[in-house]
């Protein structure tokens, strides 16, 4: 059997595949595409919820100029989609490859490499639509402004040095190139770079807009949703539309499969089981796959932490924590859900809350440093319990 990295075998296989007339090198059909990709916005107007940004960018389609840009915001809010859609609308499909350079964190981005790549790209001849009527038609559809775009996606993972080196590069080629930096944390972009760009903030999606988009997709895919499902999706994904769409698709597959299976069993039944589209996604399924810790698990920890019981507080807290760790709940999730609970608990006096916040801050830092989760959670719970016990 041919191995994965056997180049010759791979070539042979590719040759065999392309020579045989059967369409073995099948294109990915929409059916097999993850919905996040299938429903990636193709034009600026497809982008949901980032109204201000989109209005401004729409205007640049008419004008023949574009500033350097910096997009920032949490994951799954449309940053990459927006710049790709903008580029496509500016240049059209034929010129995308020659006019747009995308460098992201999966590319080597050391100082010299970025400089080289940018230089080569910037210096290459400016491609244009073909002369003649076809070109005129093309220009009617796409403005094709006289500069190229360099997208530095996931720019917050570039080193400070590499960013500094970019300043010069940006200036050197500013006549013929525009940069678009994309990142999650604007603070990780050095000031001299950030100040050269127009900044666009991408907000976590608000529930109305996110729900609208999710309903569109569900409608398109023939997924039936119980009332409240979109709300649940938006809630558990915290405004990250990518996450919400993945949850929706997975939930649809899960109910689809179970439905299909039970459909087989009761074949004779009068119940109308119409393949996958007959199944309904429920709020319970969404909550289950979202990885959110159920309320009663968190409550169990909370009540073990309460003062004034006969039994040893240490052992009751330690037992609950041991169970939670064995059940695989991640510490980060425990910390954030417990924090919510404590913070919104009106019965806890402010002074205590202040003390508790400090404990959370310390433990969060430790977890980010990779500290052991079991010890961290136990320590957190015991110390918060101590604060509760203070009078």
């Amino acid at each position, binding site marked *: *059997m*041919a*191995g*994965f*990295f056997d180049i010759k*075998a*791979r070539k042979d*296989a590719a040759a065999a595949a392309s020579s045989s007339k059967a369409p*073995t090198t*099948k294109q990915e059909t929409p*059916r*097999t*595409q993850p919905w*996040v990709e299938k429903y990636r916005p193709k034009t600026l107007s497809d982008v949901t919820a980032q109204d201000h940004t989109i209005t401004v960018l729409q205007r640049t389609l008419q004008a023949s100029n574009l500033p350097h840009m910096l997009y920032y915001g*949490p*994951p*799954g809010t449309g940053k*990459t989609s927006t710049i790709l859609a903008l580029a496509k609308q500016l240049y059209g499909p034929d010129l995308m490859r020659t006019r747009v350079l995308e460098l*992201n*964190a*999966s590319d*080597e981005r050391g100082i010299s490499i970025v400089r080289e790549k940018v230089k080569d790209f910037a210096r290459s001849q400016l491609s244009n639509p073909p002369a003649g009527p076809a070109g005129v038609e093309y220009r009617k559809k796409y403005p094709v402004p006289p500069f190229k775009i360099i997208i530095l*996606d*996931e720019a917050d*993972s570039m080193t400070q040095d590499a960013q500094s080196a970019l300043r010069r590069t940006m200036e050197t080629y500013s006549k013929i190139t525009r940069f678009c930096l994309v990142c*999650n944390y604007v603070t990780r972009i050095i000031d001299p770079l950030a100040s050269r760009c127009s900044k666009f903030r991408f907000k976590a999606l608000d529930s109305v807009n996110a729900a609208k988009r999710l309903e569109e997709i569900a409608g398109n895919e023939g997924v039936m949703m119980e009332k409240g499902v979109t709300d649940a999706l938006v809630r558990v994904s915290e405004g*990250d539309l*990518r*996450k919400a769409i*993945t949850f929706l*698709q*997975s939930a649809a*597959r*899960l109910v*689809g*499969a*179970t439905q299909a299976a039970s459909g087989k069993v009761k074949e004779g039944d009068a119940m109308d089981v119409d393949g996958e589209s007959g199944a309904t996604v429920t709020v319970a399924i969404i909550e289950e*796959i979202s990885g959110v810790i159920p309320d009663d698990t968190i409550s169990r920890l909370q009540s073990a932490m309460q003062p004034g019981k006969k039994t*040893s507080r*240490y052992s009751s807290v330690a037992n609950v924590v041991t169970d939670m760790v*064995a*059940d*695989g*709940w*991640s*510490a*980060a999730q425990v910390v954030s859900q417990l924090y919510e609970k404590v913070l919104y608990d009106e019965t806890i006096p402010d002074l205590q809350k202040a003390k508790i916040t400090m404990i959370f801050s310390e433990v969060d830092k*430790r*977890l*980010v*440093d990779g*500290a*052991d989760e079991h*010890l*961290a959670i*136990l*320590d957190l719970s*015991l*110390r918060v319990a*101590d604060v509760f016990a203070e009078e």
Partner: protein
Amino acid sequence: MALLVDKHRPRSLDTLSYHPALSARLRALAQSSDFPHLLIYGPSGAGKKTRTTALLKELYGPGVEKIKIDARTFQTTSNRKLDFTIVASVYHLEITPSDVGHTHDRVVIQHLLKEIAQTQQLDALARHRFKVVVVNEADHLSRDAQAALRRTMEKYSPNLRLILLANTTSNIIAPIRSRTLLIRVPAPSVEEIAQVLTSICARESWTPIPALHARIAVDSGRNLRRALLMYEAVRAQHEVVTADTPIAPPDWEALVGVVAREIVAERSAACILRVRAKLYDLLVHCIPPTVVLKTLTWALVGLLEEGGDDGVKGEVVRWSAFYEHRIRLGSKHIFHLEAFVAKFMRIQESYLMGMDLDF
């Protein structure tokens, strides 16, 4: 002779012995053609790997079991050569980027994944067009290596699906969590572990001893791998096995127990010195410092049980967590273990003197 752990490892989703709902969920995902990227997480010994292997078989059929091992070399930008091992079938491959360490795992991810993503599935009749890359110890990936996955996961999704395996999601950056479906694998319950032991008896033609199984299940701390190793040891060490056969802890754990008893009994510089040799011994034998510290902490808290003061135990946990964090940040593990020992003595001393804990 194969170990019990390997010999009776279930190979398909149908034969997995616990979490039936989870198995059903994985089957549903595998049968749909638009399988998502997965992040499978849960405590060690919960059976993540076994489940993943079964999932691959559900995805591609028995062909995934024909694996071979590839040795690859990568070059860093500073021209260092990195040797890296890949386990692969025609349909999937499995990598452990943390093998090459935090400074270089990014290089492996950047080169390898793109290369895979750009090649087609070899077997034209494969059930899925995409290949699966299983990434072990994903929570040990550096941030840069994780960032390197981001666009690759999106751009090459027609050719590539990732299954990330991790003990926790805490160290996985938000953009990666956003791109994966999270699947939690809880450790089996004590009862489930006992059942697995019983079912193994049937296959090995041993007489089942429910009381012993239950004890092992509890002692294992809901870690199935550990339970199986313990059971194997008990069966190997004793001619006749009964409900009361003692379950000897592994040597290193016994040694940690000795350390705990010594420092509870004597609080002195001389004792610290004696204990240092033992702690060193543990580290030399490749017991991870965090494991030493945790095991020691639980042993100490257990010994304090009779005295039963909650405050002291909380204090011990607090400093254990403190020094464990130090271990992560520092480089000389023995320093922090020793500092914890000294701190423990101090805590106990002040407690016995009835002093306020005031450090």
